[in-house]
Each structure stands twice: as structure tokens, then as C-alpha cells.
């Protein structure tokens, strides 16, 4: 050992995510105060997150909705939302594979949330990193698509453990892809037995109605 040096152990016991978690808690109380249901939408790139939102919006009423779009680059998705007349803010994470609570609180400042009942946050497409960061959301909807395969819940359990609702998209492709719905549901019932599962396809936009009803049930507006 090096005698001329003094070793010292510094006890830290500190949450690395403290900054994020504190901000997430602030976001959450903001949403509670404003009676906004904040929904974090996660899933792989291309799983159909934006398409799902496009289908969903007419059933919840575009004036009741605000959207935060998260992508590495570009504003394609926020344009898709704006063309439906929905208040939207685009966040570019410039390389980061997830949104965090700070980005959300900055985005909220840019949005006119008067009359908003539902805030949808489309996270960056990724099955791992978004689970790490609490945004202050009230519920997490996982978008999983048929072409991704039935084994995703088994391969990325933390994402599926964290979900409050799962939407299986692109079910119009079931005849062309070897996807066993039974195995998919088996995996899910093993790691998140209470997770409600909905099946949708953009070929039949009305398939989204049961999801819209389930989201409405969670709404915070006084009934």
C-alpha cells in the first residue's frame, strides 16, 4: 500500500435520481391541482404510439387533450398532432433515449393547459430507459405491436411490470406474422397479472374505443 497516501471512505447514501424524483413529484402535484390525467406512453420505436394517439384523440375530444412529443430529433410527430388540432409541444432529447421529469416541467410551461383533462406524453421509443425515469405521470400505457413478437414482455420485464395498461397494436398483421397471442398473454400474466390488455388496429379505428373508455374512467375531473 502507498504509505504516503491517506485513504478515506466517504459515506453518501444518496439517491442518484433525487433531482428527477423531486421534480417528478412536483409535476405530479401540479397535475393533481389542475385535475389533469398525465399519461406516459412508452414502447419500441415504430410500435405505433403516435398512430394510437391519432386514433384515440377523437374519442376523448381534441380540446380536452394536450400532447408532449418526445423524440431524439425532429418534429414529425408534433406536426401529426397539430394537424388534428391538438395543443402540442415537441421535445428533442438530442441523443438521450428517454424523457425525464425536468424536460416535462419545461414542456408544461410552454403549453396552454386551460381545459386540459388529459396530457399524453409520447416517450422516446425504447423498452429500457424510460422505466428508469419517473415523469410524474398518473399512468403508463405500454404500446406493443404484433411484429415485435410475443416475447417482449419476457425480455424486457421492468417495462411491462411498470405499466398500468397495455395496448397491443397492429393486430391486422396477425395472419401474416407468427405471433402467439396466447404466449404473449402468458408472459404478461406472469410478470404483471393485473395489467389490462387491449388490442387495436389502425385499419379499424373503432378498436380504440374500449381503451378510450378505460382512460376516461381514470379521469380526475369531478363527476
Amino acid at each position, binding site marked *: 500500500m502507498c504509505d504516503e497516501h491517506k485513504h478515506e471512505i466517504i459515506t453518501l447514501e444518496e439517491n442518484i435520481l433525487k433531482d*428527477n424524483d423531486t421534480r417528478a413529484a412536483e409535476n405530479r402535484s401540479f397535475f393533481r391541482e389542475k385535475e389533469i390525467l398525465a399519461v406516459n406512453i412508452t414502447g419500441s420505436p415504430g410500435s405505433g404510439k403516435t398512430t394510437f394517439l391519432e386514433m384515440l384523440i377523437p374519442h376523448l375530444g381534441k380540446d380536452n387533450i394536450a400532447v408532449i412529443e418526445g423524440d431524439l430529433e425532429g418534429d414529425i410527430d408534433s406536426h401529426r398532432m397539430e394537424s388534428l388540432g391538438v395543443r402540442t409541444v415537441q421535445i428533442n432529447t438530442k441523443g438521450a433515449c428517454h424523457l425525464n421529469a425536468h424536460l416535462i416541467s419545461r414542456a408544461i410551461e410552454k403549453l396552454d393547459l386551460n381545459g386540459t383533462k388529459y396530457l399524453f406524453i409520447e416517450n422516446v421509443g425504447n423498452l429500457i430507459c424510460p*422505466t428508469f425515469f419517473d415523469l410524474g405521470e398518473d399512468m403508463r400505457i405500454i404500446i406493443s405491436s404484433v411484429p415485435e413478437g410475443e416475447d417482449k414482455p419476457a425480455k424486457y420485464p421492468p417495462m411491462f411490470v411498470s405499466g398500468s395498461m397495455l395496448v397491443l397494436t397492429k393486430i391486422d398483421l396477425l395472419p401474416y406474422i407468427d405471433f402467439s397471442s396466447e404466449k404473449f398473454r402468458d408472459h404478461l400474466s406472469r410478470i404483471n397479472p393485473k395489467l389490462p390488455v387491449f388490442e387495436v388496429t389502425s385499419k379499424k379505428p373503432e378498436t380504440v374505443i374500449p381503451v378510450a373508455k378505460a382512460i376516461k374512467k381514470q379521469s380526475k375531473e369531478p363527476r
Partner: protein
Amino acid sequence: MHETGIARRLLSVIYPMLDGKKQVTRIKLRFGELKMVQKDLLETAFSTLTRGDKRFKDTILEIEIKPVRGKCNTCQSEFDIKNFEMRCPFCGETSIDITGGYESEIVEMEVVEDV
């Protein structure tokens, strides 16, 4: 690759505590299994972010992984959840609250100081 974000946060906790210290020899971290942190990815991210900084030349990252913990809503037992299987090993029920496995903590660090 949330490991880059973790390494960055880690450094922001450590930097303010380093004045006068010459070298960080070891950092001990604790992550819950649900945080899906990969040691090699975290090491790569950490060494990339500290490249050229002599204080972190030989820093060892020691990582403890905490298992997912569950509490059964039926029989109230508490247990480690293996393979993310949300089922009570005592009574077989599947109504379980997750009580641990989300940790992300910096536990301690070891530094060397010139005398």
C-alpha cells in the same frame, strides 16, 4: 443507454465533494433489479465522461444489485421476487405489491489524499 445519464448524475453528486482530494479509487453503487443497469455499459459511460481527468484514472465501480421485493396482499408475506414472477411463493396468489427493486443509490466512495 440510460447508463450515460446515470454516470452524469453520479458525477454531479461526486464533484462537489472532491475539493482537495487527489483520486477517487472506488465508488460503491446500489441498483434495484427493476432499474436494468448494466455494469459494463455504466463503466464505459463513466470512463468516457471522465476521460483525461486524473482524479478518476483508476476508479473502480462496485455495483450491488438489489432483488425485486414483493409483499403478498393475501397472506402478507414478504419475499424476493425471482425472474419477475409476480406470484406469492407462500400462498400462490398473484396480488402482490412491489416493495423494492427500484433503488438507484450512490452508497459511498473511497478517495486518496496526499499527506
